[in-house]
């Protein structure tokens, strides 16, 4: 009985210390806040859709899926690279980690490039943001996400630069690497909802 009482709190403390927050708590206030803001955007999009579902459906069907789907694969690949890069730095293989972060940055730039091509094609074919509510929301949602991608590429650039030298992943350095990679995954996560909502069901 006594041993149960004595060991149970120890076990809980051990479990608590094993369950670490990726990055730091303040970062998660920002990340979750950003997710809620996008959630409000998604709700607004569907509320707007309800006012004229036929126009939304026709506009969505006129949209090509190729670039959107390719960009989905690009972001998923970048996320895998970022996991690999972080684990490489954790394992003390900082040079490899640095190169992997550079490859992930390349994915981010490819995403932005393809998105720019898509915008130019849409505007060139008369499907600009001023045509109807669907296209306006398309540009607002994907444009806001693209802004996050650009910021994310900058964050990956910081990780790339820092990983070029040996890194001791403790304290604030751990927070920078884990927080930076979590931000990039947020960019991926938001696209996981945005793509089906705007390209597939909107």
């Amino acid at each position, binding site marked *: 009985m006594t041993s149960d009482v004595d060991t149970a709190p120890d076990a809980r403390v051990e479990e608590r210390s094993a369950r670490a927050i990726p990055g730091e708590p303040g970062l998660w206030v920002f990340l*979750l806040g950003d997710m809620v803001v996008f959630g409000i955007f998604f709700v607004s999009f569907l*509320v707007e859709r309800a006012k004229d579902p036929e126009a939304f459906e026709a506009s*969505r069907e006129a949209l090509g899926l190729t670039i959107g*789907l390719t960009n989905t694969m690009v972001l998923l690949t970048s996320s895998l690279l970022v996991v690999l890069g972080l684990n490489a730095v954790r394992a003390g293989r900082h040079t490899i980690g640095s190169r992997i972060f550079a490859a992930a940055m390349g994915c981010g730039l490819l995403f932005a490039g393809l998105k720019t091509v898509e915008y130019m094609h849409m505007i060139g074919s008369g499907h600009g943001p001023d045509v109807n509510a669907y296209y306006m929301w398309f540009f607002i949602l994907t444009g806001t996400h693209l802004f996050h991608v650009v910021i994310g590429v900058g964050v990956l650039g910081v990780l790339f630069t820092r990983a070029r030298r040996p890194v001791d992943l403790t304290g604030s350095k751990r927070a920078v690497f884990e927080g930076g990679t979590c931000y990039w995954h947020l960019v991926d996560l938001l696209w*996981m909802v945005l*793509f*089906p*909502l705007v390209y597939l*069901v909107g």
Partner: protein
Amino acid sequence: MASKQLLPTRVIVTWVILVLAAVVGPLLSAESHGGTVAAVVVLGIAAVKVRLVGLDFMELRHAPRALRGVFELYCVALWVVLSGLFVFL
């Protein structure tokens, strides 16, 4: 020092699931021509994908229960609210 696995098996499996799910969505959408049931399923798949990115890429699977709980709640709320708006509005 034991060599650390840079890409844990779970992360690879998650990535493969995410890639496959990314292809299933467009196929479902094309088959249904904007049907309500397909839309709810596509949004459900999206919520599952968000959860997998959070748990396995952002490492929330091993985060404190409160943080993981808030994230899981977000995933469920996302699916319920978006599907509800799509169906009932």
